[in-house]
């Protein structure tokens, strides 16, 4: 059995990142788009922690913690905007949110 190296973690993180990008680009439901963004942020965090272990420095883990803070702020504001929009327009589909188009 091959030992687990940094490369293994990078492959998992790349897979999660691409899944998140597919979710952001193809889904219509805004809630699921926001969840896909969380997937992307998790993939980045996994990379940072894997590199932190590879080099033996803790800085990567600190960055991961700051990204978690950022994700919390983003989720709170994004869902707040979503509720405000739903109250006005009765829809949560991205392709119907086109007030600023044209």
């Amino acid at each position, binding site marked *: 059995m091959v*030992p*687990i*190296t*940094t*490369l*293994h*973690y*990078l492959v*998992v993180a*790349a*897979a*999660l*990142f*691409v*899944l998140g*990008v*597919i*979710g952001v*680009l*193809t*889904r*219509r*439901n805004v*809630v*699921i788009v926001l*969840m*896909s963004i*969380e*997937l992307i942020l*998790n993939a980045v*965090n*996994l990379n940072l*922690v894997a590199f*932190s*272990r*590879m080099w*033996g420095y*803790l800085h990567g*883990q*600190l960055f*991961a*913690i*700051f990204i*978690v*803070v950022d*994700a*919390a*702020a*983003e989720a*709170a*504001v994004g*869902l*707040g*905007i*979503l*509720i*405000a929009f*739903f109250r006005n327009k009765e829809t949560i*589909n991205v*392709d119907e949110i086109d007030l600023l188009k044209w």
Partner: protein
Amino acid sequence: MNPAINSALNSGMAPVATPWFFYALAGLAVASGMAVITRRNAVHSALALIVTLLSVAGLYLMLYAPFVAGVQIIVYAGGIMVLFLFVIMLVNLDRSSKERQFNRMWPVGLAAACALLALFVSVIVKGKALFPDRGMTLPESSNTQQVAAMLYGEAGRMGQYTFAFEIASLLLLVAILGAVIMTKKKI
């Protein structure tokens, strides 16, 4: 720290059955990540995302990062996902689960994502030599202590990330204000 524990950690005490745990956690993370972006019901997506977050927390534990794993479970799985589930309950989703789930441009999006995947694969294949096999054994038992020393500083001096930490608290304050104002009845 107990010197016996320290030397045991530094001598690279190999955990039992590590590869199997890694493959199980990674497979679980990717499979439930797929469930997140394909489910029709948003509540199912949220539950699948919780499974992904917990298995990524397990991967952090395998990378000797217990504090990040704890933060992942408490903040992500415990805080952010509860927020998501509340919002899913607030916005009416009975109708939206019956209609089209993917937007009209989905082939373009899928093609772009495949191009990104090809880029990642080429980077990982060509840059294999950049990622050495060795893994530094980070001292796991004092991980939280060291993270705290870098965030808050130690012995009266500011840590390397103290200023960034304060800025992060300001960011959270702004986010709280934004969320509260956004959800008011009359903006």
